[in-house]
């Protein structure tokens, strides 16, 4: 699986990336590549730098060293909005729905730079659960509904690559299944690539082409999704 992935053209290439909050280093040299239409999972404990990695790839945190390249272009110094417009989508931890905007407005604001006609109607076909909620304020939705909205909102900007930060956190199991099924659909039908940061083993195994184990600010190991089924191995690398 990993060999075939490496033959695909690289969409995202992270090389020797270091960074953190202020003077506190968290990422200690990350190397990561994501191919076209590839799903890469990143597994790791709390505090290993998973969220920091995604925030640095998105540009919300400045890299102190190393580089991020997207479609062969060095984007290390780009602002987040420029990365977003280039096709990188971000579904952050805690979902970050605009609480006082309606569900429809949450989708519309994501589509402001996107001229595609009938986009929101098409998105609602993909997320039928959101249809009856369009006039509700984002802040009053349940966690699961918010997560679906966060995904739909991300897709409204027509990204080529989506960074997902713990989408199953605090979500009821029925919606986790729905999210997993939707993500598979978007990968196969729209050809979107994903970087998924997650602690839910079953979820990450069901989706990923490759799984990276992150430990203490570095990628410690690359695993095949099948290897995650082996509890001893997981114990060794992740301690979950």
């Amino acid at each position, binding site marked *: 699986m990993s060999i075939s992935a490496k033959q695909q053209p690289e969409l995202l290439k992270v090389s020797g990336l270091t960074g953190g909050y202020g003077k506190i280093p968290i990422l200690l040299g990350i190397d990561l590549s994501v191919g076209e239409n590839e799903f890469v999972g990143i597994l790791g404990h709390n505090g290993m730098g998973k969220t920091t990695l995604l925030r640095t790839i*998105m540009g*919300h945190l400045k890299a102190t060293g190393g580089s991020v390249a997207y479609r062969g272009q060095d984007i290390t110094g780009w*602002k*987040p*909005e420029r990365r*977003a*417009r280039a096709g990188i*989508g*971000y579904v*952050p931890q805690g979902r*970050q729905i*605009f*609480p*006082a*905007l309606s569900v429809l*407005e949450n989708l*519309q*604001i*994501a589509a*402001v*730079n996107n001229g595609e006609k009938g986009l929101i109607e098409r998105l609602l076909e993909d997320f039928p659960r959101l249809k009856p909620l369009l006039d509700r*304020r984002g802040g009053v939705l349940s966690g699961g509904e918010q997560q679906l909205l966060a995904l739909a*909102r991300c897709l409204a*900007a027509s990204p080529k690559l989506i960074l997902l930060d713990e989408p199953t956190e605090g979500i009821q199991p029925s919606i986790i299944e729905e999210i997993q099924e939707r993500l598979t659909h978007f990968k196969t039908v729209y050809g979107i690539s994903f970087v998924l940061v997650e602690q839910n083993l079953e979820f990450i195994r069901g989706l990923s082409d490759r799984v990276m184990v992150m430990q203490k600010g570095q990628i410690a190991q690359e695993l095949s999704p099948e290897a995650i089924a082996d509890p001893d191995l997981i114990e060794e690398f992740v301690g979950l």
Partner: protein
Amino acid sequence: MDYVIVLILQILFSVSSLALVCAGLAVIFGMMRVINLAHGEFIMLGGFTTVFATQAGIPIVVSMLVVAPAIVAVIGFVIERLVVRHLYGRMIDTMLATWGLSLLLIGAATMLFGNSVAGISAPFGSFTVGQYRVSVYEMFIVAVTLVLLIGCYLLLRFTRLGLIARGTMQNSEMAASLGISPSKVYSVTFTAGAALSGLAGALLAPLSGVVPTMGKAYVAKAFITVISGGEAILTGLVSASGLLGSVGTLTTFATTPVVGDAALLFAAIILLRFLPNGITGRFFRRSI
């Protein structure tokens, strides 16, 4: 009966002029969490622009509604670029910087225009209600404020620009993740806030006269009103101006203007004691 009508018109005027004086501050503080201590000087610059433009032969209504907001908008745009932009998220630093700016603008205006009152006379004359005389110009200010508030509401609620502004206000980092540039939104917001302050100064110029230090008279009242309004920019502005403006005017009618101002501030203190997040922190929470 006539007395009641005049009193109501007077309250409408006080509430409108208070809302007008606060609007620029409310937009800048509400959208960007930037405390602009040079707010009063934006008002002053709007006043001077109106006086000079009118003296130069531009019709007074054009000077007030077009020239003054435009000039102060340009000044606001430049100040955002040169000063405020570099201090986002650092509230104390922004306050110090804009305070310095306030002193600079007062000094510069005193040097250029002198320390005497520049004035223009209010247009439109007056009409009578029974035995009382009411200024048409004061009612003109009520009308302009009303149009302005409705315009702001429609802009924020129904346009693409308004949607972008509201989203950025709620979560600027997420807005950036969706391809919206917060710094552009802030630049537009600050410029719009400056234009509103310029408009306020322009409309008040014929009533109060224009001096370099005139901003000081407005800034404290404006701040306390905006804070009393709370998070929702427009609803907060309208409700706090309505409440505090009415208290101030009624007290003024019963006693003197000085006691009226004191009553306004006292009412704000009581309000904030019981509603520390302002009126819209408790009521009208779904509003804009």
